[in-house]
């Protein structure tokens, strides 16, 4: 318990430094673009692949589980759309990004810490926390919502491919289903969740990387801790935000 409180306090102190006024906006702009490429664009392939298959599997499972002729097949499109928008795209994908992006952030900063590169920045008078972490946070906050929107579209498209390719349901039923009772608020809810998750993934992983003490072994350990903690926090915040926003 004491250890957890210590981590929360140290995390808060680090965030205070991260969110302090940057020395040079010009340099930060360049770094934000670099980070968007490193954290966002490089994840695009994985997002595309996962989303299509997630949508396809949801569509298949829903279609094969409808036995009663009283249940309209439009429900398959509706269920696929709702599952993808409400949960699979924002939460599942964020958990996967916590693994990919989070471990990359923690190990990058951890390596910089053990090779004294962070000390070198501090000695020069650079706010190393802000210089290294703020561009990652901003780029994730800007880019992750795009990734999630792409994931939503492709997830629904994955279901469409199943409907066309397998003939398990009429394509028109699937299309009617995805139009059925569409609530824009659900997309807004997913975007809010994504912003929270983006902040959790970048800052929690960065905290574990930035505070590494020791050598390469500790970099690996802290990288794992970063991913595990981010994933747990994503699940907790997913529940809390759902309770606040949907009920």
């Amino acid at each position, binding site marked *: 318990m004491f250890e957890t409180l210590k981590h929360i306090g140290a995390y808060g102190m680090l965030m205070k430094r991260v969110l302090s006024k940057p*020395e*040079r906006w010009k*340099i930060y702009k360049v770094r934000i673009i670099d980070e968007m490429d490193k954290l966002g664009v490089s994840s695009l392939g994985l997002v595309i692949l996962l989303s299509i298959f997630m949508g396809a599997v949801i569509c298949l499972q829903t279609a094969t589980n409808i036995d009663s002729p009283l249940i309209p097949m439009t429900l398959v499109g509706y269920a696929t759309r709702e599952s993808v928008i409400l949960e699979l795209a924002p939460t599942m994908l964020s958990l996967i990004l916590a693994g990919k992006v989070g471990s990359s952030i923690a190990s990058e900063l951890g*390596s*910089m810490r053990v*090779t*004294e*590169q962070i*000390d*070198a920045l*501090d*000695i*020069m*008078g*650079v706010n190393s926390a802000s210089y290294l972490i703020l561009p990652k946070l901003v780029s994730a906050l800007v880019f992750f919502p795009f990734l999630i929107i792409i994931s939503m579209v492709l997830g629904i498209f994955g279901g469409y491919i199943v409907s066309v390719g397998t003939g398990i349901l009429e394509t028109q039923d699937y299309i009617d289903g995805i139009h059925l009772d569409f609530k824009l608020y659900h997309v807004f809810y997913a975007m809010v969740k994504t912003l929270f998750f983006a902040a959790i993934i970048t800052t929690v992983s960065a905290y574990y990387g930035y505070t590494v003490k020791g050598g390469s072994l500790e970099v690996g350990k802290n990288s794992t801790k970063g991913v595990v903690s981010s994933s747990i926090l994503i699940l907790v915040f997913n529940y809390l935000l759902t309770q606040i926003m949907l009920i």
Partner: protein
Amino acid sequence: MIELKGINKSFDGVQIIKDVSASFEKGKVTQIIGKSGSGKSVLTKCVVGLHEPDSGQIIYDGQNYSDMRGSERTEIRKSIGMLFQASALFDSLTVLQNVMFPLTMFTDQSKSEMEDRANECLRKVNIIDKGHLFPAETSGGMQKRIAIARAIAMEPKYLFADEPNSGLDPQTAIVIDNLIQEITSEYNTTTVVVTHDMNSVMEVADKIIFIHNGQKWWQGTKEELIRTDNTELQDFVYASKFMKRLRESLLSGS
């Protein structure tokens, strides 16, 4: 000039630095020597502000660094150049970008002006036409020289080096020592070098401080070091039979 007054530092209840007072003069190279774990690197990190001392004062040219916070401290740090044991070059930047880094952060120079200054610093450390390489593509000795180029880019008033010769062959180590000495004379810097390389001490030290068990045990010049009768210092400096024989021959004048 940098003055230390009664510096104490503990980690997890273990006192590493015990009431150290010392001064580092401008335009001179002060070398801090001592066994591994004696506290010399911790002391240096306290002086540059990477560790906060538990008590004591650090005074940079009359300004109390220990009492400073935020922007005041940043101003002092901009005039500090530091060489780290592992060079601490930024992996993601090229050699030229590494040297330009402090200029891009703290000056309003144009890109071409910064490149000119970075190339000038690289020429000073005898690195020519390597600016496009990444640090991982260069040798250990070259990385140390690039780190020196980066440290002098802002024309520092204070230069710190933490074991700058570790992992280098004797010839390359002498090149690094001579560069540190040249920079100290040219920029009139207050230079502090942490080392256990006695060749380096004999080559460039104007003043030597011996740290033993976290305390300032001895200070003096190279000549005084040869004649010292301090047992702990003798054990450290003349650890090998060869060094013991060398000392005897120096003292006997043969």
